[in-house]
């Protein structure tokens, strides 16, 4: 569904991504793991058009999308739930969600029934239903994360890009976020997940890519990566030593 071929990108003078190729098949969850500065967020930003790739191809359902503006890419069906949530702080929860559907209303994809989808999203995230009239800026960090994810779902997208959904959340909420990801997967949603909790990400994912210094060093089925000694040493080790 989403294919990246030999992508190169960076910021100003700093070249971050070196010939990245990856594939997110329909209905699957693919995770991108790697240490800080490896280029995970940069990959996400390049896909959703927030930075322009300097070389390479990105295609959605076979159509090239690289070089297009972010708003066009959203209209084509890629929803980005960004690192750090970025909800519209001075708007209500409901308005945030309706805005999530905005690219549907102006794009060429089927418009669907926004109010029905709104109800569905609220069902998926009951906490948001409780707080539907509240301003997004007054939500706690965990609720804002759910709102960012729900807003992405509202696009009715072909692919959701989830960037660090568990960052800065209490352990109990991290669990909840991963439950929601699992549920979205059950419903057939295609997702590309960037996550520092590599172990949790590999648990929920079908396939994984390991990004090292802007290059993909290892990739394979998630189950296989989980047992790869190199991956364990570099990305899984050191976590969960508390018990």
């Amino acid at each position, binding site marked *: 569904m989403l294919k990246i071929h030999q992508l190169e990108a960076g910021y100003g003078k700093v070249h971050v991504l070196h010939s990245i190729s990856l594939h997110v098949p329909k209905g699957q969850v693919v995770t991108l793991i790697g240490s800080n500065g490896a280029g995970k967020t940069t990959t996400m930003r390049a896909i959703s058009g927030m930075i322009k790739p300097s070389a390479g191809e990105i295609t959605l359902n076979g159509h090239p999308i690289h070089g297009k503006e972010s708003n066009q890419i959203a209209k084509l069906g890629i929803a980005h739930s960004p690192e750090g949530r970025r909800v519209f702080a001075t708007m209500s929860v409901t308005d945030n969600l309706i805005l999530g559907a905005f690219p549907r209303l102006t794009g060429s994809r089927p418009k669907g029934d926004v109010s029905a989808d709104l109800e569905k999203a609220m069902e998926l995230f009951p906490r948001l239903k409780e707080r539907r009239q509240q301003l997004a800026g007054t939500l706690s960090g965990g609720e804002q994360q759910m709102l960012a994810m729900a807003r992405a779902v509202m696009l009715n997208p072909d692919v959701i890009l989830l960037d660090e959904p568990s960052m800065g959340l209490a*352990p109990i909420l991290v669990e909840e976020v991963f439950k929601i990801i699992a549920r979205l997967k059950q419903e057939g949603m295609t997702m590309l997940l960037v996550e520092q909790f590599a172990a949790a990400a590999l648990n929920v994912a079908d396939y994984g890519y390991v990004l090292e210094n802007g290059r993909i060093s290892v990739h394979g089925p998630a189950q296989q990566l989980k047992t790869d000694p190199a991956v364990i040493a*570099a990305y899984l080790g050191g976590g969960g030593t508390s018990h």
Partner: protein
Amino acid sequence: MTMRAHSSSWAAVVWVLAVLIPLAIPNPYYIHLVETIMIYSILLFGLDIVVGYTGQVSLGHAGLFGIGAYTAGVMFMKLSASVWFILPTSIAVTAVFGAILALPALRVSGPYLAMVTLAFGTIIQILINEMTFLTEGPLGIKIAKPVLWGEKLTEREFYWLVCVILGLALIFVHRVLRSHLGRAFEALKGSPIASDCMGVSVYRYKVYAFVVSAGLAGLAGSLYAYSEQYISPNTYNFELTVLFLLATIMGGRKTRSGAIIGATIIVMLPKLLDDIELFRWVASTAAVVIAVGAVIGLQKKFTTPKAVIIPVVGTLALAAFSYQLKNMTDWRLSIFGLMILFVVYYLQDGIVGFISKLGHLGEVESTSLRETDSVQASSDVAHPSTALGQNRNHAVSAVSATVPHSIILSAQSVLMQFGGLKAINDVNLVIKRGEIHGLIGPNGSGKSTMMNVLTGIYIPSAGQIEFNGQSVVGRSSSDIALSGIARTFQNVQLFGDMSVLQNVLVGLHHSFESPLWNVALHAPSYLKEEMQANARAHDLLEFVGLDALSNELAHNLPYGKQRLLEIARALALNPQLLLLDEPAAGLTAPDIKELIAYIRKIRDSGVTIILIEHHMDVVMGICDTVSVLDFGQKIAEGKPAEVQANEKVITAYLGGSSTTEKVQ
């Protein structure tokens, strides 16, 4: 260093050329034009401090310019004072008005500040007009060229005097902006909250910037009075203030060459538009240059056809139009407006910014960040202990714990109320010296609010907070920071447009004692301070493993490294108490291991730490005591193991099983 030497030798060459102009072109008209450019440049150096560095808007600089001119005029008329007396007095009087202009900037910003400063400028103009007993009102004041050593200066000699003063002003501004003062100005723009928490008082340095800026405007104003030999209130109007702002934007912010180019544009452009022959020539040249530039750009793939079509067609059309025109008078203002629109739209970094960007395009796109990254990462992962080798111990030179386990900070019944919401409700917190004290709790439970209360960003609605036995309630953030509490921020608050090294140097601001004149004169005491601060900053960067990236802009760093930089910057304050707000957020397991080692190292050097964190392996691994907040109240406190077993904590925060455990 080479860049610096390069630009100063360029400046010297241009300055010498300017000095030689009267010898080459004896026409007094042109000499006077260049003189005006130089006088405006002095003012623009000052305006750039406010606009480019501190990021404020000022539409009051024409007013300040007028105050400088009229101080000179009144002194000359009423007291027949000498130039030696008039120039310093103009600077001083205008600087005082600069402080007044700064007052609104402390409360408002953006368009509001623009309006307030605009009102200031208008009031000044009206006052000059109305205070006839002092200023002669609309009649204006006549001034003779200054007398130096008994001789009245000729036009040409006065020109050279302006040259000398411009040179001095350039050196002064350049040195001040490269010093800790300039860094303080820039830090205000990058993040006011972080500046305050680094002991750089936003209040103080905003006023400071306006005062220095106004002093330069006053100097320029008094020179202008001598240059024109006649001043009247109408000169210092709204149009002039907008021109000054435009010059800063068009020339390029944060550069001295930009100020000079900007001054040249605002002085020359109206003249250029007076003469149709000259205008035709310039319009055709611009069209050719832009067309050639576009072709080269397209060939080398710097740009796309879509991006260059409008400028190319626009300049060609302007050139064609210039040959159609019979006379300029009707079209002057429209063309002037169009050119401004064009520059502001296409050259947002100004002309100097645009040229330096072109220069960078030619360079090989190096991957300094990645290369050093990999070296760093591999060495750190392989030898986590050597990464924090012995030689770095001295980097964190905290005041050693004189009385271990004495109480460093105590908060009693702290209440923080926002409207009806009690973000912190009757919380007691006692932090023992030398400990790592964890603060955990669900999102929105009041942890970050607590940090903000402790660092003076919020003043608690009720309760007592004592640090080293002294109350911190009601003291300013910068004051608290200087007394020994440093912090990092949950949502990283770096000075993004400053280099990694400069960020740490802002943290070291407290180590500078040199006043303005020592900085301007490069007094040995100042140079020594700067050298020591640089060495210390490099040590701190080495401590967190960022030394190789010291020249990179802070916002180019990946997230995890930004967090480490915040820690280095906080350590620069030599704190006794360090508040870390979610330092591990966004870090992967190996990075977290490294972070734990850093935190331990910091504690071992005698710094007490309060740690907010959601990664339980970090909290449970290194904290001596853990306090748990929920809905603004403390629900548990004790040793990590005790807290972890607490039913209330499990229900509110930890959940049935910790995530890390579940996935393994």
